[in-house]
């Protein structure tokens, strides 16, 4: 009894110290390493590496010149050379526009129509959160590649084929594929939150249906659209695997260039670039979180009645049907093409690609990727990630639902990995731990696999927190008060009442963490370079250029794992926390 009380008093803070310690080691320290290295010059510290980038036309185009000669902005208007950063922003803007254009009609269909399977489609809009980006890339190659489904169809129709790989178009389209469902989801939720009585009131005051839509619905949707657009911009700005696989170095973004510098062992440039990128993405994420917090989730007392999707032909139904066709092609197409490509070859239907995954295992050279090793590594790292990310995520969720001084700091820290790209975390871990770090006169190094698990855990625990925190916050205070009045200590209440009630959310968070780990590419590709700790996504990237068949087969394996995780998340969770 007494022992239990001591354990309680010591246990909770201890768990806190361990969690914060892990966060420090796995996230804060690597990021700090990147920060420090970016300003480290022989014999001391200097901002020179950063200013060198800021004034380099390669990175900032005309804006680099403008630092010393602002008039250049006027002289060369509007024919600007963008530079690497400018291009990254430019492609993110295009991607955001494309995602909004593709997502908004989806929001309309989801919010205003009734059709069989509507709920399923609605859940599926959360799928991109767990979808490995490299899998999306392989799906796009299978669809739009030189011998992809699109060109096969065009050829069979006797039409000229199109070359989309390594163009900006396909990058933008892939980003839209990724983020349009998110925009549809957030906007549809806002739309459903507008009471039918609002429109009816406007109508009774004299507004036409169109006018009522403009005056009453649109202003209430705008914040949601903006939230989604901001998020899309951030994701597209930091996007890595898609740009690397579909664009290559000729269409490199900052993130891809950092990766390339790492590969070229030019760590000075890599860290300096990473710092600039991080400043930008942190500012954006901060703006996003501030803006999102201002939104109040409304739920309509009486939502507007839905229109049956199937019925007499009308303008709005035609529009919805048309959109459904576009959505099928854009969203289902790439995944279907990937599956199709994995089971077809020159001889027709075949399992050759899957066979290859097994055969290659036996006869690969040491420098070649062994498929089965990739699968096993992925599963092992996934398991390791859960061991770290789930307790951390749950603990931070508990903390974030308490009131105390300094909570905001912990909240921010808990969500910070959203704002720092995987490549930066990977780079920091590589420089800090894999290459070794000196402390107390000893040199500490950790192996690649441990660093990979750490990187995955950093990417995964915010999803655990975002699943569990709302569930915890949703528990009626009177349950806690009842238990305490019956004699339970605060920690006992947590263990006996609150945690059991959020088990589904914890399981959903667990599935999320697993899916994130399985699909993680950005930091893994840096930490696994040159070693044997490659995962399925890394294997796909290495196969993608040379062997499309095996790449798609492995993509299908990834799709199955992701799909199962998603079903668990969908059944048990409260969504991603983004416009749930």
């Amino acid at each position, binding site marked *: 009894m007494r022992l239990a009380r001591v354990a309680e008093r010591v246990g909770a803070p201890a768990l806190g110290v361990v969690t914060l310690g892990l966060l420090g080691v796995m996230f804060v320290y690597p990021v700090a390493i990147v920060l420090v290295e970016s300003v480290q010059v022989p014999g001391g510290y200097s901002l020179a590496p950063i200013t060198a980038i800021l004034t380099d036309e390669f990175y900032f185009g005309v804006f680099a010149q403008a630092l010393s000669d602002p008039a250049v902005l006027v002289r060369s208007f509007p024919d600007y050379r963008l530079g690497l950063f400018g291009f990254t922003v430019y492609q993110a803007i295009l991607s955001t526009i494309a995602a909004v254009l593709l997502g908004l009609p989806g929001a309309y269909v989801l919010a205003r129509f009734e059709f069989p399977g509507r709920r399923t489609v609605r859940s599926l809009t959360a799928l991109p959160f767990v979808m490995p980006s490299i899998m999306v890339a392989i799906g796009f190659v299978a669809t739009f590649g030189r011998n992809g489904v699109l060109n096969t169809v065009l050829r069979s129709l006797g039409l000229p084929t199109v070359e989309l790989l390594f163009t900006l178009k396909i990058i933008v389209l892939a980003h839209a594929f990724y983020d349009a469902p998110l925009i549809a989801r957030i906007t549809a939720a806002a739309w459903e939150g507008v*009471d039918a*009585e*609002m429109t*009816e*009131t*406007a*109508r*009774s*005051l*004299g*507004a*036409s*249906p169109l006018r009522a839509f403009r*005056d*009453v619905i649109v*202003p*209430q949707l705008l914040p949601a659209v903006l939230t989604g657009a901001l998020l899309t911009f951030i994701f597209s700005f930091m996007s890595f695997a898609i740009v690397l696989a579909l664009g290559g170095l000729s269409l490199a973004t900052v993130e891809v260039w950092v990766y390339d510098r790492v590969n070229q062992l030019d760590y000075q440039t890599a860290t300096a670039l990473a710092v600039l990128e991080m400043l930008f993405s942190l500012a954006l994420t901060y703006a996003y979180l501030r803006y999102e917090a201002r939104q*109040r989730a*409304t739920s309509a*007392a*009486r939502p507007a009645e839905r229109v049956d999707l199937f019925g007499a032909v009308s303008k709005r139904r035609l529009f919805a049907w048309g959109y459904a066709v576009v959505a099928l092609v854009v969203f289902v197409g790439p995944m279907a093409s990937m599956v199709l490509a994995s089971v077809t070859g020159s001889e027709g239907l075949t399992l050759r690609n899957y066979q290859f995954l097994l055969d290659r295992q036996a006869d690969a050279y040491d420098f070649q990727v062994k498929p089965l090793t990739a699968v096993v590594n992925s599963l092992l790292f996934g398991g390791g990630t859960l061991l770290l990310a789930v307790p951390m995520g749950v603990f931070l969720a508990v903390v974030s639902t308490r009131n105390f001084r300094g909570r905001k700091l912990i909240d921010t820290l808990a969500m910070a990995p959203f704002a720092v790209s995987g490549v930066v975390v990977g780079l920091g871990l590589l420089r800090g731990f894999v290459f070794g770090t000196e402390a107390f006169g000893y040199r500490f190094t950790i192996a690649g696999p441990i660093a990979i698990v750490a990187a995955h855990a950093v990417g995964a625990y915010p999803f655990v927190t975002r699943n569990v925190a709302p569930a915890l916050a949703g528990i009626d205070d009177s349950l806690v008060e009842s238990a305490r009045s019956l004699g339970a200590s605060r920690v006992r209440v947590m263990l006996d009442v609150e945690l059991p009630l959020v088990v589904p959310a914890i399981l959903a968070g667990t599935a999320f963490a697993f899916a994130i780990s399985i699909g993680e590419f950005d930091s893994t590709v840096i930490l696994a370079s040159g070693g044997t700790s490659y995962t399925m996504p890394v294997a796909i990237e290495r196969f993608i250029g040379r062997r499309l068949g095996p790449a798609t087969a492995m993509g299908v394996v990834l799709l199955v794992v992701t799909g199962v995780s998603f079903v668990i998340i969908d059944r048990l969770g409260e969504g991603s926390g983004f416009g749930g």
Partner: protein
Amino acid sequence: MVSVGSLELDAVRKEFADTVALDGVSLDIAEGEFFTLVGPSGCGKTTTLRTIAGLETPTSGSVRFDGVDVSGVPTEERDVGIVFQNYALFPHMSVRENVAYGLNFVEPPDGKSTDERVTELLDLVDLSGMGDREPDQLSGGQQQRVALARALAPAPDVLLLDEPMSALDARLRETLRRQVKRIQAELDVTTVYVTHDQEEALAISDRLAVMHDGRVEQVGTPREVYERPATEFVAAFVGENNLFRGEAVGTRDDGTTTVAVDGTEFRVADGDLAAGDLTFCVRPEDLTVDADTNRFEVTVDTVEFLGETTRYYVDWGEKSIVFRTPDPHDAERLTLGFDPGDARVL
């Protein structure tokens, strides 16, 4: 604009996919009248209101504004103002912008500017100086009054209120009720008020219609409906009541009818021998312990002290009966009775 606002519903029927919401509703509402639709949830009162507003299209039957059939006229072209239960204030507009919204579509009355009109309305609902607030900075009662001001700003012919008080607590409801009634009387605007609260309906209305299962059970002034319920449903729904089902077995010289209820004979004033089976009701306040007639012995079950009166739930055989009296009684068994004239035959 000629001041108008009479309303007629003629055999309005409204079917939804698998239910009949309105089953032949006919109403005649006069200019300037405060008319209430009251009934339990699902009785069709809100559907009736929405049909008047043009938010629902009747399956058959017609709605006439000042004698003119408005079938097919969209809501925005009907001269109505609506206040909903949840107020439906536009969250992205200030109080002032909310109230002014309807003035985008019609000129403010009496040659006033929009600003003057909005100020006038805010004064009317006692919200002077609150124009720059956002809706979510207001209390429920204030939001309700903004919604009222907004509905009234374009000077509609007909004001439609859909349970506007039900989200408020009891005391505030009574205050606002008086205020709504005062404003309505001041503006003399035809008002259709929907509520499930029969007490509120009695308190506020010039006339009311009691609805049940998509039909109008009775239309009358509050006093008529309370004192002369037309049907068993009205008798039971409006105020407390005791229903007695029996058989008319004879008449007396004084014109009363004898009704046998479970072996006990009662005399009621306005019975009809030819009716055979017959139901009458007696209000709790009309049952007394010292009556000379219609006496029957009961066992006290529960006593509730209500302040001015005390309410007794008593058992008469299998039947539960309620009565109210200003004078408390301690006995476990009581003899109750009532005047034949206080029994209302349904």
